């Protein structure tokens, strides 16, 4: 039996510590991990809990992130609860195995502390790694602060391990801004937290020798397509389970999560759509602008995958001008997030104006003033009835203005 860990009703935790406490309360059986800044403390803390008897689990320190996820796949197929953490280059090294984990429908929880991808090498937060996972078949949940990193990691186990889902889940938080910033966190008691998640009930357990199973078979053109289609269907169908888990969590804690979070959206005319801590910055800007009479609102995507296409549309269709903020180098295209939100809005009768801002790469600070400027540009668009700026702009960049494409109006 694991030792009791005393918690206060209110703790001061950073995002990493919050995530690691969720792993402890979930009594994760195996963590196979390789440390990388800024997610290192999550697995260090797990190791400390094991070393001091707070978890009855196995901490397997492997020799690379590829091996970390490989070990997690082997452990998860062996029927217990599995989690790990990574960032950036480590995430990139894991990518091969991310696809294999989801293809085998293994409910591994990966806490991703978002960080830019090299080159140039950079340890600060942007969403390059998060975007790299977007086609990997994982559920991707995004936490905007330490409390959410804790809450959503607990939820992740319950979602992924649900037998109607059986998919791996990533819980993202922003490198340093969330992971290393101490904030108030209200944890659940160990009993309450574990009671919420429940025991893992294995499926196709490699250690159940009354029913030998083969994992990782090959499929060619005669089977592969149906298999991937079923996997996509499982992701799409997980939406209702995610909603149910969030509802149950609200009953337990009073903290309500939604796949798409809207702030001041009831009458919003100009909107920022964003991921991560930027959502909180934009909220402050929106509130200040509202005092000046600008009807500003903010939409944060809580569940990045499965992408809430219909909810994004419903939330935004009555806005006039929308800025979609991509914190990832777009590599010769519009921002990927912009493209997804635009596609959702294209299916509305109003088709609000929508522009794309590339910002905050490599941890470049995103300030309230910058958010306000973006809102005011939307206001100008709304007033003019058309986009007055380049459709894609780099925001917060030194040097000359960098932007691309204008609306075709004749």
């Amino acid at each position, binding site marked *: 039996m694991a030792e009791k860990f005393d918690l206060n009703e209110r703790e001061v935790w950073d995002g990493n510590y919050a995530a690691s406490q969720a792993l402890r309360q979930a009594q994760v059986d195996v963590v196979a991990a390789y440390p990388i800044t800024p997610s290192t403390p999550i697995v260090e803390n797990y190791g400390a809990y094991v070393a001091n008897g707070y978890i009855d689990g196995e901490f397997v320190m492997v020799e690379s992130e590829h091996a970390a996820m490989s070990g997690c796949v082997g452990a998860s197929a062996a029927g217990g609860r599995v989690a790990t953490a990574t960032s950036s280059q480590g995430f990139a090294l894991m990518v091969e195995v991310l696809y294999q984990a989801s293809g085998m429908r293994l409910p591994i929880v990966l806490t991703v502390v978002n960080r830019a991808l090299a080159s140039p090498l950079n340890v600060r937060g942007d969403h390059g790694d998060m975007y790299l996972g977007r086609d990997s078949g994982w559920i991707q949940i995004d936490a905007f602060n330490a409390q959410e990193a804790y809450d959503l990691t607990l939820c992740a186990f319950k979602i992924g391990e649900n037998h109607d889902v059986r998919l791996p889940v990533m819980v993202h938080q922003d490198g340093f801004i969330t992971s290393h910033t101490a904030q108030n966190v209200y944890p659940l008691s160990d009993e309450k937290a574990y009671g919420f998640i429940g025991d893992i009930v294995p499926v*196709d357990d490699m250690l159940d020798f009354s029913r*030998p199973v083969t994992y990782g078979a090959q499929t060619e053109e005669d089977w592969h397509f149906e298999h991937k289609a079923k996997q996509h269907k499982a992701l799409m169908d997980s939406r209702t389970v995610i909603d149910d888990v969030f509802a149950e969590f609200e009953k337990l804690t009073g903290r309500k999560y939604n796949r798409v979070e809207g702030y001041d959206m009831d009458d919003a005319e100009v909107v920022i759509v964003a991921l991560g801590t930027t959502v909180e910055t934009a909220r402050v800007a929106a509130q200040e602008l509202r005092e000046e009479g600008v009807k500003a609102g903010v939409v944060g995507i809580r569940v990045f995958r499965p992408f809430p296409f219909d909810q994004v549309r419903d939330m935004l269709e009555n806005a006039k001008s929308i800025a979609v903020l991509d914190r990832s180098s777009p590599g010769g295209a519009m921002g990927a997030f912009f493209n997804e939100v635009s596609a959702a809005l294209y299916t509305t009768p109003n088709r609000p104006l929508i522009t794309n801002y590339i910002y905050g790469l490599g941890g470049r600070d995103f300030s309230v003033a910058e958010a306000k400027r973006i809102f005011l540009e939307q206001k100008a668009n709304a007033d003019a009835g058309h986009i007055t700026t380049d459709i894609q702009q780099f925001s917060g960049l030194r040097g000359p203005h960098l932007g691309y494409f204008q609306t075709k109006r004749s």
Partner: protein
Amino acid sequence: MQDLKLKAAEKRGIHQLGGDELVGWDEVTQGIILTSFEGDASDIVHKKAEERNYSDFNSYTATVASWRVKKPVFNIDVCIDCQNCWVWCPDTSIISRDKQMLGIDYDHCKGCEVCVEVCPTNPKSLLMFGEQEDLETALSQWPEKKKKEK
């Protein structure tokens, strides 16, 4: 006549590899996981093939007989049950029970001829014949014991 389904469980070799019969939507298992047996298989290691309840996913239920152009034929009268053929058969196609060589599983034999090569008897207890040759004709053509050349 030698029984070609010798010691076969009911489902041995009933499926063609890559055959269409299983293709569908409902047969796509979650996570592409394959189960080897139906029901409780706890003690499978102590059960002979014909006592096992193989699932349709087990390759035991599939056949590679079409790979062969020649087949090994077994002559029980010459065999000394040394089990060389059993240990070196790459296709689990030598049927040995209670230390006795009984014959060949023609659903899984690919005709590689290793069993013939490793057979130490004189004449050999296993020889290759055309795929269409029947057992009686094959046995009637069995060579005599060779004298050692000096």
